[in-house]
């Protein structure tokens, strides 16, 4: 029994009955991968029982019999294929009982899908994030790696996972190819999910729904997210181009450590209707001189939740006192609870940004956040509300 996962509830994934194009990345590679996966030769490792199942289909009943008598719950008994955000076709067991999840953006979705009990190991960086404030159960999951870049393969193998979910080499902070290859050689299917745009976010949620067998909840989450974002985008239409504000995002130890033009494939500030003044700098984060910030002269400054200074520090910084944003006191720090980028909470972050950029649109980001937290995390939102 074998099936290829095809996202269904989104028009953008299907151009025709046989052609699947993802809305992001190099779609030609992705289609190529998908096409090659639909050929009779299967992309499974030679020692993988599933490939033998296909090639010796006549022996299927015998193998099923063997599988049933040897171990009733063997995960190799059934296999299906999914396509991750790097366009790789990955064969995964039909039922996932033990997953190792190294990416914080995915663990949240798994929690919302009610499948956190099936996560066997996570990375320290997930524990260290604000997620634990509203998903305390995360603290009970064994930590098996410091971060995606530092994993001990033996510790992963010791957990006997059915699947490993992480960010891949196409992401600046993702896992390297060598480690992925070694994990796969050890028989662990590796699903790479890089969430750098809204579409990748929706796709990964849908995929998680399929992997953990809760498509209904996944669809509910996506439709709620799309509802919030659609609402905001509708309101943003009232802002014409001449009124668009100039925004700068800062972080680190000093306020001249800024985010450049590369912040995922979609810039949340641009989504919230602003111009990113630093878009010419094709870097994730970098240091610029205060004179450069003076040249940009942003109208609003947003600060990362992890920055070592507060909005008040920036407003009182003599280097910046002449900047528009500081003069008008339009400097805001991300609330930790909704920070992070393309997580299921991205609509909340977008609502927060839009509310700060265009107060005249009267977007009640705290109300939206309250509702979202109650509905999907089962807890109240306790972060700042101003």
């Amino acid at each position: 029994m074998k099936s290829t996962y095809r996202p269904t509830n989104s028009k953008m994934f299907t151009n025709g009955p046989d052609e699947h194009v993802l809305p992001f990345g190099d779609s030609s590679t992705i289609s190529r991968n998908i096409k090659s996966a639909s050929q009779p030769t299967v992309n499974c490792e030679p020692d993988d029982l599933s490939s033998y199942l296909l090639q010796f289909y006549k022996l299927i009943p015998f193998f099923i019999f063997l599988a049933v008598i040897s171990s009733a719950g063997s995960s190799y008994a059934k296999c299906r294929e999914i396509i991750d955000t790097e366009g790789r076709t990955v064969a995964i067991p039909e039922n996932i009982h033990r997953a190792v999840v190294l990416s914080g953006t995915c663990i949240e979705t798994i929690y919302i899908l009610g499948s956190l009990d099936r996560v066997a190991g996570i990375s320290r960086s997930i524990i260290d994030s604000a997620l634990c404030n509203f998903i305390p159960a995360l603290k009970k999951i064994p930590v098996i790696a410091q971060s995606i870049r530092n994993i001990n393969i033996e510790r992963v193998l010791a957990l006997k996972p059915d699947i490993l979910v992480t960010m891949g080499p196409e992401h600046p902070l993702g896992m390297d190819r060598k480690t992925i290859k070694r994990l796969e050689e050890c028989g662990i299917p590796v699903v790479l999910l890089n969430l750098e745009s809204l579409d990748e976010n929706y796709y990964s949620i849908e995929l998680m729904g399929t992997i953990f067998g809760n498509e209904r909840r996944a669809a509910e989450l996506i439709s709620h997210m799309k509802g919030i974002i659609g609402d905001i985008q509708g309101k943003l239409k009232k802002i014409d181009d001449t009124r668009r504000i100039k925004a700068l995002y800062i972080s680190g130890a000093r306020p001249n450590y800024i985010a450049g033009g590369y912040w995922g494939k979609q810039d949340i500030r641009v989504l919230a209707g602003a111009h990113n003044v630093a878009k010419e700098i094709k870097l994730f984060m970098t240091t610029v001189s205060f004179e450069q910030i003076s040249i940009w002269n942003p109208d609003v400054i947003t600060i990362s939740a992890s920055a070592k200074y507060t909005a008040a520090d920036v407003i009182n910084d003599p280097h910046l006192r002449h900047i528009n944003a500081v003069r008008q006191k339009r400097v805001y720090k991300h609330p930790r609870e909704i920070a992070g980028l393309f997580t299921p909470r991205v609509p909340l972050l977008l609502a927060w940004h839009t509310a700060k950029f265009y107060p005249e649109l009267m977007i009640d980001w705290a109300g939206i956040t309250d509702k979202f937290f109650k509905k999907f995390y089962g807890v109240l939102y306790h972060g700042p509300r101003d």
Partner: protein
Amino acid sequence: MARETKGIVLFLLYASPLFFCITSVFVGPYSLTPAEIVDLIGKRIICSGQSVTEQAILFDIRLPRIILALLTGCALSASSACFQATFRNPLVSEYILGISAGAAFGASLSIATLGDELPVQLMAFAGGIAAVLLTYGMARIRGETQTLSLVLAGIITNAIFTGGNYIIRYFAEPEQLHVLIVWLMGSFSAASWKDISYSGPFIIAGTVFLYLLRWRLNLLSMGDEEAKAFGINTEKMKIVLLGTATLVTAAAISVVGIIGWIGLMVPHIVRLLIGSDNRRVLPASATFGAALMLMADDAVRMAKGVELPVGVLTTIIGAPFFAYLIRKSRGGVWE
């Protein structure tokens, strides 16, 4: 070198900071013409507050940066000249006693783990001083501190703090890691009057103190036995000189991060130009170091957009330049 030429060279070395200080005011990505700058200074003097942006760029961004670069260059070079004379070893730089490793450890601790409670500057300063105390404690045997045991203890301290630093880096979040790496490269990009008020008093007082003791460096550089013969308590003198130089260095790097090569290179260049009399080497190193540091910072400051940490530039340019000097002086620089 003829007496007059030497006098001119010495004058140029002493006057260099002033020259670069004036030219640096006109350098920066935000274009300000000389006329505008003169106008701004004039307005500042008669207190007529106009054109907030230009005022801020000149007085809150450019000037503190220029002054901090001068102070840092002066601190690193003067303390290095002092270390090299005390240790009677030209390979010694301001980091020999473990100051840089200690400061880096303190800064890492603050950036990666402690959050907002303890500022980076304070932790880096404390780390640098703690490292030197450790080195000195290890090297002091039966009330005496041999130069060799100080160097060895310095190497051990360096290793201990570098190891600690690696552990912190390993466990740091990617974003914090980046901040940490940028700090370790040293930069004046966020220089402020507050930074100057932290480090300035230590640097100025320390350098003046070293200047007053400059002739004793000549005695110490002859060796412990000879210095004792002149009636100098070498043990006490070493503590005073190394303690002051440490304080000066730690004050500088705790604010700007670690900037390599300036400290090692400047006393060498000065000695090549004016000979090895510490009475002149120390002040000339202080002024020329300040000028060189400022020049290096001007180079990175001119760039629009992304700014390279100045420590990267001093290392990239400094190392080959040093090699060139050695070749040119036919190894004389080692003597």
